[in-house]
């Protein structure tokens, strides 16, 4: 984004202030989006964002599970209401050092557990394209903030699709990088072996540039890679000539809504027109991904959330007269129903007598899922193309009573987390006015290739979309505000 920064007419904080004003407007009233859980005060933002870097003066919305010094970090949970982290996430430091300005903290499913942002203890976020529908989740607030044109880019986290699925539902771009590409230090853990910080953008370029800023090794995260970070925009506009795009049969089943399949077919047609070779492939263990995920993620979560005990921070039941009561009451009161459900599920999957049948077995199936992908790359497939979600954004409340139905929203996205590979969701059109996302998956560490294909798809659709504002500090398409 640096290339267009410094054109000079407006003071750096003009754009930040404009974004803030837009954000504030969308927080109130009957048509409010409720994308943010906390926003910076105008006075605090004066003179911010002057550090010279790739994000100078760019306002960034940040998911509320990333630790920030200036704003609370609640993770959408009652347990952490008003919690102020005494340290900041590595990705936040990198954004700041690149000149970016954290505008506010965005709404999310509690502890990132959900696919609709309805599991926030602070009320749901609404989809800017249809206020009666969910923005997806769990990073729904960040997706909505970008879709509403408040900011051009935002941070989220993706454990099973929590960046890509809301990006698809909100008609923006969402990237989940390779596991280990971005530091998790300061990301409040949900499922540590699956969590990655991801980025949203109004365009592929916006999302990729933010990813460039936050990538790289961090001494405070043992799982972050020491590999050199490539230039994600290398060959950005070189197109897909000669690339082999695999289309996995298992992602185009009856679960997929017909109209979405049509949008995907059209997208593939456009890639073919631009010189890509399209090949049908099979990833035979795909059907096992959701069950595997719903053993492993809750198992890890049950342990990651044990630190929320009411001793060092968080809520404590005031009348608790024993340590046991402190734990029981604080946790029972502090956690919402989905979090309780997953802690229960995960505790069960790890408990004596059940470990082998659940957690142990799921680990092995995870290997099978990973092998499916490896075989595909070995067969000469450069990237895979799939739908991001089997349905467009659903109506608020439509799935809250049925956990399994909600979990199946992640059917096309959890595989990338299980295999540790990068994925991106990019708009491929709409159905009845609702945006549809296509997903591109690539081998580990091949974000650059993945971004190039996403860019080609984006460009192929450009004729049907409004041009974006050329100044990256300004909001996105601005259509909704």
């Amino acid at each position: 984004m640096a290339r267009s920064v410094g054109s000079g007419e407006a003071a750096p904080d003009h754009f930040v202030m404009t974004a803030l004003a837009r954000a504030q407007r969308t927080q109130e009233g009957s048509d409010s989006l409720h994308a943010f859980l906390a926003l910076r005060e105008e006075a605090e933002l004066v003179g911010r964002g002057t550090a010279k870097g790739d994000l100078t003066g760019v306002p960034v919305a940040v998911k509320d599970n990333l630790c920030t010094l200036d704003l609370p970090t609640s993770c959408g949970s009652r347990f952490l209401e008003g919690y102020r982290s005494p340290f900041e996430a590595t990705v936040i430091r990198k954004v700041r050092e690149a000149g970016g300005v954290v505008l506010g903290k965005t709404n999310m499913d509690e502890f990132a557990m959900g696919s609709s942002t309805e599991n926030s203890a602070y009320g749901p976020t609404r989809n800017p394209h249809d206020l009666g529908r969910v923005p997806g989740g769990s990073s729904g607030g960040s997706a909505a903030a970008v879709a509403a044109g408040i900011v051009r880019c935002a941070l989220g986290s993706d454990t099973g699709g929590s960046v890509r699925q809301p990006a698809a539902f909100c008609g923006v771009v969402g990237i989940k990088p390779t596991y280990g590409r971005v530091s998790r230090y300061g990301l409040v853990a949900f499922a540590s072996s699956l969590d990655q910080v991801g980025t949203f953008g109004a365009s592929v370029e916006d999302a990729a540039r933010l990813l460039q800023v936050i990538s790289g090794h961090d001494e405070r995260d043992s799982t972050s890679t020491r590999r050199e970070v490539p230039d994600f925009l290398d060959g950005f506009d070189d197109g897909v000539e000669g690339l082999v795009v695999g289309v996995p049969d298992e992602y185009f089943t009856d679960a997929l809504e017909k109209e979405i399949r049509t949008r995907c077919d059209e997208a593939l047609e456009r890639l073919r027109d631009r010189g890509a070779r399209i090949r049908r492939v099979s990833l035979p263990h795909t059907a096992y991904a959701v069950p595997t995920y719903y053993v492993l993620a809750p198992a890890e979560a049950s342990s990651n959330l044990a630190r929320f005990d009411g001793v060092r921070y968080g809520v404590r039941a005031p009348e608790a007269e024993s340590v046991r009561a402190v734990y029981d009451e604080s946790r029972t009161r502090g956690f919402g129903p989905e979090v309780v459900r997953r802690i229960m599920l995960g505790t069960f999957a790890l408990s004596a007598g059940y470990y082998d049948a659940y957690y142990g077995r799921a680990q092995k199936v995870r290997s099978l899922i990973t092998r499916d992908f490896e075989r595909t790359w070995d067969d000469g497939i450069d990237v895979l193309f799939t739908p991001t979600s089997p349905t467009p954004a659903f109506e608020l409340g439509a799935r809250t009573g049925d956990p399994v139905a909600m979990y199946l929203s992640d059917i096309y996205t959890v595989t990338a987390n299980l295999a540790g590979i990068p994925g991106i969701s990019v708009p491929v059109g709409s159905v009845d006015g609702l945006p549809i996302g296509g997903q591109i998956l690539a081998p580990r560490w091949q974000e650059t290739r993945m971004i190039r294909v996403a860019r080609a798809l984006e460009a192929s659709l450009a004729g049907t979309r409004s041009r974006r504002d050329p100044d990256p500090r300004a909001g996105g398409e601005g259509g909704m505000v």
Partner: protein
Amino acid sequence: MAVSEEQVRRIADLARLKPDGAAIARLTGELNGILEHVRALERLDVEGPEDTVHGSNGAITYRDPDLEPDGLVAGAPGDRAPDWRNGFFVVPRLPALDGGADEDRGAP
């Protein structure tokens, strides 16, 4: 192998959660619904594959000895604690192991 309400109660106990009777009944139904779905995994032959327990394949790396503890920028470690007195985190009295004053249990 469906889970019973009794098992759900035991799991809640392990997880330090205290759902009331109605919640136990609801959770039992929900967990059984989810486990029914998870049961698909039983159909697979998992004799061959290794375990995947980490997000990537690398080996552990050691901390740079010069790395400093990340500062607690604002004030004391107990600033966020519900009960913090004289430099201690404070909880309701635990049953001491030896009936005496200080219990220095250490890690098991």
